[in-house]
């Protein structure tokens, strides 16, 4: 298997062109393998970790936690679904021609890319100034808990695991991966606009040096093949019954108090009346 695709420049010198599309298949099957693994893992291990949460309801009600709690604002949800749609379009337009489904994809691809870019820009501003910025980032506590969690699962002595805040570590990890891959494809994708006809920038294939272009295509490809796996696994989790309450929250915005109490630490995701769903 090749990691990179090399070509020759007009002078016959070897030059990096892009990632090898072998990686597309690799990441696709890696995603599938992860899903299969997780299905088994979830079936065998998760029941063992289940805990009762009885008796919390009243206390929670007393603490002023509303019955439904807004988890994603309307704007955040719009952002998410716009991003999801553009991402799916980008994946389909980017990869279907490679796997043999031919159609005129370039224009759709770059327009979807621009939509994605705009939505990401919105997200960055929105998350920075209007949301609990730090809620999605991996913090030292997360790491510590992760260690404890693994210890527990291995059957070793470990301290009590606290419930997570608004986002559990796996969400945070996923977000980080998406962010890195996303920045790579968006950053390189914007530069690659100079190599195609589009309404925004004039074509200039010699904007960058030849090795730099090779790097752009390679990074774009790496991000893109990573997204194949990320998207697969993301969809998988979204449709898992035990996670479906989260998917619903992305559709409708809120979670029930019960779920909140089940999964979240009220100290770490502070909820009050103002957070209650408007619905």
């Amino acid at each position: 298997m090749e990691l990179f695709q090399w070509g020759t420049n007009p002078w016959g010198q070897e030059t990096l062109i892009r990632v090898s599309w072998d990686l597309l298949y690799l990441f696709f099957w890696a995603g599938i393998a992860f899903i299969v693994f997780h299905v088994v893992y979830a079936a065998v291990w998760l029941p063992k970790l289940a805990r009762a949460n009885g008796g919390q309801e009243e206390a929670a009600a007393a603490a002023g936690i509303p019955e439904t709690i807004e988890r994603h604002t309307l704007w955040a949800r719009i952002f998410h679904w716009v991003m999801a749609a553009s991402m799916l379009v980008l994946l389909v337009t980017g990869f279907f021609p490679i796997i043999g489904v031919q159609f005129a994809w370039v224009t759709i691809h770059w327009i979807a890319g621009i939509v994605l870019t705009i939505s990401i820009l919105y997200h960055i501003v929105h998350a920075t100034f209007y949301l609990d910025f730090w809620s999605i980032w991996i913090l030292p506590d997360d790491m510590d808990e992760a260690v404890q969690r693994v210890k527990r699962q291995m059957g070793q002595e470990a301290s009590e695991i606290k419930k997570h805040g608004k986002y559990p570590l796996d969400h945070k990890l996923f977000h980080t991966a998406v962010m890195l891959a996303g920045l790579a494809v968006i950053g390189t994708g914007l530069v690659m606009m100079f190599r195609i006809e589009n309404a925004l920038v004039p074509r200039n294939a010699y904007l960058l040096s030849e090795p730099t272009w090779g790097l752009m295509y390679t990074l774009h490809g790496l991000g893109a093949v990573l997204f194949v796996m990320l998207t697969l696994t993301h969809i998988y989790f979204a449709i898992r019954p035990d996670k479906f309450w989260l998917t619903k929250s992305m559709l409708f915005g809120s979670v029930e108090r019960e779920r909140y109490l089940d999964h979240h630490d009220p100290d770490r995701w502070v909820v009050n009346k103002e957070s209650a769903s408007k619905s």
Partner: protein
Amino acid sequence: MADYKLIGKNYTTPDILAKVTGRAKYAEDFRAEGMLFAKLLVSPMPHARVRRLDTSAAMAMPGVEAILTADELPEAEAPQEAGLTNEPLYEGEPILAIAAVDEETAAEAIEAVQIDFEPLPFVLDPMDSLRPGGPNARLDGNTMAGRDLSTIKWDSVDWSEVDRGIMPLGGEVTDEWQVGDVEAGFAEADLILDESVFSASLSHQPLETRTAMAYWQNGKCFMHCSTQSTARTEGGMARWIGIDPTDLVLIAEYCGGGFGSKISSSIQARIPALLSRKAGKPVMMRVTRQEENFFGRARPGIQARAKFGFKSDGRVVAIDLTMVQDGGPYGRSGDYMSCADQASLMYQPEHMRVRGMTVYTNTPPRGAQRAPGGVQAVAMFAPIVDKAARQLDLDRLDIIHTNAPQGQALFGRPRQGRQGNVSSAFPKEAIDKAREEFDWEGMKARSGQRNGSKVTGVGVAISSYSAGTSGVDGLLVIRPDGMVEIHTGVGNLGTESFSDTSRAAMEALDTPWEQAEVVWGDTSKHLPWSAIQGGSQTTHGHTRSNWAAGLEAKKRLQEIAADRFGGSADSFEVGNGRVFRRGNRGQAMTFGQAAERAIQLGGVYDGSQLPEDINEMTTRSATALAGRGLVVAAKDNFETGGRNMSFCIGFAEVEVDTETGAVVLKDYKVASDAGTVLHPQNFAGQVHGGGIQGFGVALGQKWVMDPQWGLHVAKRFYSNRPPTILDAPHDQELAWSVADEPDPFNPLGAKGIGEAPVGAGAGAVLNAISDALGGNVDFNRSPIMGDMILTMLNPELDEAHNKLSTHV
């Protein structure tokens, strides 16, 4: 015209039967026992250095017999080329050669060579090399100043002008001359045209590539190559191979075209010779068309500023030229200088200043191409003179006539403060004759006629070029079987001058051509020192030398007869293959009998005693022939009277479709002043063939290169476009005429005709296109193609490139 029996008559040349039956052997037609095939590894970059070279995998391949690298060649002194190099200066320059049992293996071996190049800065357009900080094509400089490589940058000129297609004045140049006072000349002028002009580089593309086959036998190298000249190739080729000329047997009876690119064959021919020595087997190196495009030579492009001052009667009073020649990477060709000389001759300005230089570029090597500089002169300046005629409201043929030289006119770069003169010039007579014969008034009447979107244009242009030098040797043997063997060291590249000029000897002997046998093309057959077959040298030079040999033979025949029959030599006549007493034809000897007698007499008669003044090569050949009959060697010592020049005036009729830009040539006629015509059929072939080559210059033969990578993109005939038969007028036979004025400094009045026709064709077509578009159009460059015409006719279209752009 004098009353000749052979000169001026059509006849069958001695090579044509072999040609028309396929028996004529060109270099690639020879085979030798155990012959290997060579393939070249050529540079993929315009300028680079070989950083690492590993031929072990190639050498290990079964069937690979020898590899020749640049390191094994004697070093060439800059700016000359070596044939193989480790620092390629243009795309396609050979790096190494591999000989293998067959071409397939050689090709695969080339692909197995591990080679790593370090790209170096390159330049395609001379102007880019003159810019301050601009790249140089060579690491040792970008031009030749005198005999030295040096670097010149134009830091004082306005480069924004160049970007707008204006050639700047005042940049430093390496060559400069002036006659009269140009400023005073322009002060006198009633009309001044000051324009930037460009004539593009174009490759020769002879149909036979410079394929060569060589082998060694008993220490001698046998070389089959393609060359225009035989005698003048021997020494250079021997030097290239590194052997004494006497150890070289050069066989080149047929040459599939050269147009100046094979005057003395090509340096790449040394490759099979050296490979053959290394491998111990014969080696055939088939040069591909694409390789020919790379190292087969090309006419240098010239970017120029031309300022012409005219009097109201059309007389050119002053010319001021600034020229930059695209020199390619090697050598020191001076097309721009002969370009100035021809302008000086054709337009006879009283005041003229010339400033010029050649700038090296990483494009294929340049060389002389049929009227080097002369064609560029016509392509660049004929449209200016044509335009002046329009602006001064003069007849366009008249303005040519007005300025054309007459008699022994002075022209060109002055030496010791004085211009030299032309030996004879009768272009005015040629024009006067053509005006009637070609019905110039009728042609003019068709100018501007419209047929829908198609407009007829009529163009006329004069072209001049050198037509011969002198001082070479004639060598003939009258054999005991009565045949006259005329040996000639000029080549046979299709002009047939090797044969046509041999007829001078038979004319001198007043003997039928059937009794002649021309010996040519193989140095083992003992050839005399001859003119280079290039620059139209042969016709003038070899009618002189063969006439000299013929006269000398006649004298010896008379002496032999006097010796046999008594009396003075003067009382004998020579004619019809016999020498006989005047008034008593009974006292006669046949050539055969005289030859027998010559052998008996020895000394000056059988070649054992030779003239002192002949060339060493002639002496060697004549000595080898000694004893075979009456052996006569003679040097051309006839008087010379200036530089020998011939003239052509082309008349073209085109139809330009203003909706598609398509140009169709409807007719082409050519008038000439080229002295006595030796062989009318061949003469017509030269004037028309040259003219149509000029159409290629005018209409589309060119290089296209990618500026980012410095690589050719139009390497194929379908993309670099030599003219096809349908691009030439083909509905009626083309007319030609001659002034029929013999050159006073040739015993038969002959001048060369190879060169001048090209410019005439190019200039006439350029002017005709301009005429069709209403005159006063400023293409200011050649070639003109349909896209340029459409762009000019539709001002809303963006101009694709400025006037001075090269290789677009």
